[in-house]
């Protein structure tokens, strides 16, 4: 017995590492629900009470959960539902309908989905679904049949609630909210949205029927709490098989978070966004560098991950351009400087480039115009430059007005890093006027 135990506690490093990867990946990518939502206790209680009343007393309600992206709206709702469904009284009674504004893009689809999720279609066969009008009448009839004390309460969960407000006449919202305000089947309408102005989207009749309950999820998380959260997110659970390894790991995480450079990285992350999703992105990149040869997270790993996360996508793209294309970009940058951001066309860029070739260039080959045109078009395809007019059909290609989508700094930065950039091109780029 003791032998087996000893065997168990002493796993190989490789096995431990792979175990760690599995646990943490699950945590970061699968959006596991935490034990208890952090920093939103009052909202949690409010929502729980509200839904409990619908489930237990049959009281109809409507509520909006509002918060910026990544603030934990869905997580809050899921936690509440998880706790609610532990009560058997609730579990046996409640029906749930989950709708998503991006999936149910109009009321017709939404109605079908509701009917499907309520398992009502076996009552009607599949013929009814031919007509939107019949479907609506059918569902309303179903809801009307119910009453407060006898029907099972239904939770309507509308993700991306604001998108439902764009449906024609807001028929679905009107009807759901109307049911929630009349003595029909008890329902709770729970809307999740990140728009703070969502109420202004509602039509006045719909608005009047909404109960105006909003649960705001605006995190006022301090950096200290944020740091604690990072430690707990990276930490291994108590029931990790190899206790020795897990202790070492947890210690290393603690030490990591006390490191100055790491603190700076996390501070930057915190400054840019408080939500946990971006943090998870950073941590998963860090985690991917953990291997048998590198069994714990080093500050350098985090720095590298932060660099990758914060990299500028356009600058990365510039590195892959040919010298000719880069020269065109520089020419455009000069044009921007000269004309103060006014749009340019191919001919202007061509002339600018020609000037450079004639006056300063030693290394650049004198390309033909069609070749330059091709390079120009390539830039357009990469959307580094963008045509100003909507319809380009009428104007000759050479004279279409274009705008550069890059910043002055981005171009300069790129030139610094560009491999084997000819010095004359660099100088040309740096000189104030072409």
């Amino acid at each position, binding site marked *: 017995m003791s032998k087996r135990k000893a065997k168990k506690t002493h796993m190989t490093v490789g096995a431990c590492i792979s175990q760690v990867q599995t646990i943490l990946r699950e945590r970061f990518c699968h959006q596991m629900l935490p034990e208890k939502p952090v920093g939103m206790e009052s909202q949690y209680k*409010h929502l729980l*009470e509200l839904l409990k009343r619908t489930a237990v*007393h049959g*009281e109809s309600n409507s509520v909006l959960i509002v918060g*910026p*992206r990544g603030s934990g709206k869905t997580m809050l709702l899921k936690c509440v539902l998880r706790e609610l469904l532990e009560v058997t009284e609730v579990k*046996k*009674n409640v*029906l749930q309908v989950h709708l998503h504004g991006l999936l149910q893009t109009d*009321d017709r689809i939404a109605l079908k989905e509701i009917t499907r999720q309520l398992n009502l279609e*076996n009552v*009607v*066969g599949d*013929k009814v679904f031919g007509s939107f*009008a019949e479907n*609506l*009448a*059918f569902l*309303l009839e*179903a809801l009307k*049949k*119910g009453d407060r*004390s*006898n*029907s*099972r309460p*239904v939770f309507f969960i509308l993700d991306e609630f604001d998108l439902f407000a764009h449906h024609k*006449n807001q028929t679905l919202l009107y*009807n759901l909210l109307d049911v929630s*305000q*009349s003595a029909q*089947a008890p329902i709770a309408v729970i809307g999740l949205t990140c728009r*703070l102005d969502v109420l202004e989207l509602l039509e*006045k*009749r719909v*608005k*009047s*029927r909404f*109960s*105006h*309950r*909003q649960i*705001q999820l*605006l995190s*006022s998380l301090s950096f200290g709490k944020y740091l604690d959260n990072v430690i707990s997110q990276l930490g291994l659970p108590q029931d990790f098989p190899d206790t020795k390894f897990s202790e070492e790991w947890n210690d290393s995480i603690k030490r990591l978070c006390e490191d100055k450079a790491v603190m700076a990285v996390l501070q*930057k992350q*915190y*400054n*840019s*966004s*408080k939500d946990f999703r971006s943090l998870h992105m950073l941590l998963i990149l860090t985690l991917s560098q953990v291997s048998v040869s590198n069994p714990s997270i080093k500050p350098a790993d985090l720095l590298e991950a932060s660099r990758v996360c*914060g990299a*500028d*996508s*356009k600058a990365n793209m510039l590195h892959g351009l040919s010298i000719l294309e880069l020269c065109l970009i520089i020419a455009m940058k000069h044009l921007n400087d000269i004309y103060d951001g006014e749009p340019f066309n191919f001919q202007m860029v061509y002339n600018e480039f020609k000037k450079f070739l004639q006056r300063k260039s030693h290394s650049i080959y004198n390309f033909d115009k069609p070749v330059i045109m091709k390079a120009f078009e390539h830039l357009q395809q990469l*959307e580094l430059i*963008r045509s100003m007019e909507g319809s380009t059909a009428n104007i000759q290609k050479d004279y279409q007005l274009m705008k550069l*989508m890059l*910043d002055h700094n*981005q171009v300069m930065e790129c030139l610094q890093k560009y491999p084997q950039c000819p010095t004359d091109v660099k100088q040309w780029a740096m000189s104030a006027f072409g």
Partner: protein
Amino acid sequence: MVGYFTRLRVRRVYRWGRRQPTSFHRKLNTFYFDSLTISVDGQPGITTVNPGDYVLIEGDDDDYPFVAKILEFFNDETHNQKMAQVQWFIRWCELPHKNKKLLGRSPHPHEVFYYLGHSCDNEINAESILSTVQVQHIPASAPFPESPTRDTLYVKLSWDTKTFKELDPALMQDTLVPASPPPRPKPFPHCSPPTASLLSRAGRSLPTPDPMVMRRAGSAVPARVTMSAGKMGTNEAESVHSAAKLSASKTLSAKRRGRTAVTPGVRKKLQLSLSASPEKGMTGEEVLCELLDEEVESEKVLAIKLNSSPPRSLQHGYSLCNMSSGRKPPSLLGQVSLTPYSINLDRLSPSALGEQDSSRDMMLGVAPLLLEDEVFEAALPTDTGFANTPKKRQATPRRKYFTGQKATTPSRRKDSSVMREPALGVLAEEDAENSPMQPVAMTPRSKRKSAQLVASRIRKQLDLLDSTQDLSDEDDCYVPSKKQLQSSSEEEMEEEEAAECEETRVRKTRGRIIKAPATPARTPRKTPSKKATPSTPRTPRDAIPSIPSRTLPARQPGNILEEARARLHVSSVPESLPCREQEFQDIYNFVESKVMDGTGGCMYISGVPGTGKTATVHEVIRCLQHASDIDEIPTFRFIEINGMKMTDPHQAYVQILQKLTDQKATADHAAALLEKRFSNSAPRKETTVLLVDELDLLWTRKQNVMYNLFDWPTRRHARLVVLTIANTMDLPERIMINRVASRLGLTRMSFQPYSFKQLQQIITSRLNKVKAFEEDALQLVSRKVAALSGDARRCLDICRRATEICEHSASLPSSTGLVGMSHVMEALDEMFSSSYITAIRCASVQEQLFLRAILAEFRRLGLEEATFQQVFVQHQALCRVEGLQPISTSEGLAVCQRLGACRLLLLESSRLDVLQRVRLNVSQDDVLYALKVDRD
């Protein structure tokens, strides 16, 4: 087998069977005939219809003509119209939808119900008879015959507009043999003494009792009774048997009804017994006994009798004739009819037995020859304790006769027929009596009433307008597209049937639970023309859907706060709507007058959301329905549609049609059917009250939906009252074209937003003595809401939220258990405060910095708009100032998008990348304020 030809399709010629009338009613100036022959143009053969036969009568629906039994034929006083008195049978599809579930089983396709209601005119134009039909009575427990033939209908139950009852076989039994009526040589042709009709006739001709006429009437009745009594001798056994059965069943039903004690019962019986009597040869006494049975138990009728001061001499005369009539009938009969009667009295009326006897005697004698309503009332047995508003009743019927006498308008025919009709005379009279109006105002009313009542049965028959069954003879007289539509629907039906079987099988194999189809939502529209054999009873297609019921019962509110919360929920319907009394009264008067008059009209109701428009209308309808239940006003039908609850304005037609007749159709077809329905002058019809909520959503480019809705009420026979609700007061002017607005008329009403006092009253009345709020707190809520919107829903929601907050803080020692100011303040804060400032304060450092960069850029540009590129330059500069590491453009864009997603910023499409323009969605001051506090 082809379908029933309506008059429009085929010309029918109607003649009396024998040219000579069998009898003549001198007072009514009508001739009675013993048969009617119908010959169809172009077809050999003559159909002869005798009283007692069952006939199909032309209605709105060619597929399902009305079914009735002929009681007698006569012509009207002008001798131009052939009339018939009938006993109606009602088809399943004619039943109001809400009552269908009362049956508790699916109906046989050929099933009809014996109609015991009283809202239908029993007198019809004989020329609306289409053909004869067989009606067979089946005991309620017995199954329907296996192979039904098309021409046979089955009756099991009777329907009295409230419940289904097992049909007394006696009613059907002897009428199954269509015996030719007994010869009636005497000038008084009615077997049953038509008290009311005699009365009414007399009332018309002799407004004051004339002793001569009285005497004549008195002597005439005994003579007639003698005759029928003599006839009794021949088939005494049978009739006694049936009479016994009849009265026994009556007693039963009387007992049942004794509890509710409403007049309809009496009427029904009256009608019943009268209609049954010609075949049975029942004597007047029998009928009267039965009448009495009913009447004694019915408080109303009793009440009528109470407080009329009977002229002594008249009463005396009656008792005389009573004696003479009492002597004549065989003693056996007397006993049979007497026994149940006294038992009845014993149970149901509090008066002593002896009194009953005397009153019965009086009644027996008097009833046959009542000359005037007052006399009638005077002679009826007195029983104090049940007097309800007798004064009015006393006065009203009289008026009616006067007006009836005067009637020279086109409606005269109908009117006078009412007068003549025995059963209906009584009906009309009672109805008029029951009406709550002042006697002075009654003159036109009572007349209208009778006419209306007669016609109000129409609705029952109006179902199923579509689908002519006759394809071969189709002449497209109504709907041009009908043929096509119908045939396609027929095919569809067949397919559906097949699919259904398939479906059922599949589902069964899957082991799912199939809901027992409760009612056929789609009325069986089988068309008999093509198939030689009628289809088997189809399984109803879609059951009424419902949310499954909960396995555990809902918990009841536990404490005062929960109780208060339940009462404050918008959905809990209060007993009455406070603060809308005036509006309620106006709408009530409007609808009531239209229902009473049998006319139509429109009303437009406006008001901002949450001011109780729909609730008030519903309240009005509830009250009116109650009034019609106790027979104060004619029955009417209420239909509600809501512009928001349909997907397309034209669906309004479909919904109206479905609610009216329970039949499905496409929008165009439904429009055509409704058009037909509202422009036809169908024989049986009752007023329809249509509530159109959210009217503005019915707007279409051509506005034809609105046009039709407002045009139908103006039709002469439509009897449609349209109540429309919308939010804006000037909607008719703003969105309606002239011809629509003109039809809507100027009957408008606007609901003002509630004032704070009204809101306070609403909450108080809802709470109804549940002490959960402090006074100040209530006042604060109502003042705040009144200042903002006057929306009662909002007010109730805030109160509800306040109770929750109070409950949460109940653990604190300072709490009193009542909802106080602090709780209300918190709730108000939650609901009204803007979250922008909090959102800015909670934003991350970079997001706040970006907002500041925007402000700086706006200041620099002097515009309220900038591109991201411009703002980002400022942002980078600010980063350096703040000592933060500058972020890359990608990160900057992410920050910008995040702010845009919660609508702190308004952004252009993100495809524009760095060129997208940025605007603030909050005022700059708010941003500055939020950021400044943050830095402190």
